[in-house]
C-alpha cells in the first residue's frame, strides 16, 4: 500500500489556515483599508518606518509567516478545489500549485534577508 506524502502539505495547510484565520484579517484591514484610506498619520507609513519594521528580525519573521504560510494554505485548497470542479489533477498540477507556494516563500525570505542586512 502506498503511503501518501500529503502530511507535509497538510501540515503547512493547517499552519497557514490558522494564520489566515487569526492574523490575516487584521493585516488586510491595516494594509488594505486603513492605510490606503488614510486612517493613520501618513508619516507613520513612510518608507523609513516600513523598512524599520521589515528590517527588524521580529518584523521579518511576522512578515514571512503572514505571507508564506497562507500561501501554502491557499494553494493546497486551490489544488484540491480544481479536483472538486472536475479537473483531473495530475502530478503536474500538484507541482505547479505547491511550486508557486514554494517560490513565494523563497522570494519572501530572500527579500527579507536583503532588508535585514540593509
Amino acid at each position, binding site marked *: 500500500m502506498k503511503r501518501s506524502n500529503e502530511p507535509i502539505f497538510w501540515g503547512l495547510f493547517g499552519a497557514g489556515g490558522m494564520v489566515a484565520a487569526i492574523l490575516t484579517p487584521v493585516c488586510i484591514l491595516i494594509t488594505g483599508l486603513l492605510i490606503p484610506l488614510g486612517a493613520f498619520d501618513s508619516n507613520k507609513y513612510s518608507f523609513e518606518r516600513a523598512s524599520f519594521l521589515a528590517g527588524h528580525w521580529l518584523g521579518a519573521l511576522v512578515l514571512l509567516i503572514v*505571507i508564506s504560510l497562507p500561501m501554502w494554505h491557499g*494553494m493546497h485548497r486551490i489544488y484540491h478545489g480544481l479536483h472538486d470542479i472536475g479537473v483531473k489533477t495530475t502530478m503536474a498540477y500538484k507541482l505547479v500549485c505547491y511550486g508557486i507556494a514554494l517560490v513565494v516563500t523563497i522570494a519572501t525570505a530572500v527579500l527579507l534577508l536583503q532588508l535585514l542586512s540593509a
Partner: protein
Amino acid sequence: MSIRQPYVRPIKTSWWLKNTFYIKYMIREGSSIATVIYSLVLLTGLFRLAQGPATFANWLHAMQSPVAIIFHLIALVWVLYHSVTWFELAPKAADIWLGGKRLADSVIIKAMYGLLIVVSVIVLAIVAI
C-alpha cells in the same frame, strides 16, 4: 450473463450548486483565492520596499486605487468567513480529554475567537503607536 445494468449517475461540474452546504463549502474553499492574492500583494509591497522609497511610494499609491480597496474589502469579508469556518471545524481535529470527558468544541471555538480578537488588538496597537 448478468441481468444487472447498474446506472451510474454522472457527477456534473456544478454538483456543488445542489445544496447550501456544498455552496458554503465552496465559498469556504474559495477564500483561499483571496488569501493567495493578498499574499502576493504583500510580497509585491516587500519587493517595492526593497527597491527603495520611490517605488515603495508607488506601491502605497496603487493600494489606494478603487480596485485595490474593493479587493481588500472583499478579501477581508472572505477571510473572516474563513476564520469562522476554521474555528468551527478545528475542534474536530483536536481530541483533548480532561478527567474522562472530551473538551467541548465550544470551549475551543471560544478560545480561538478570543485569540483572534487579542491578536488583532495587539497588532492594531503596535501599528497605531
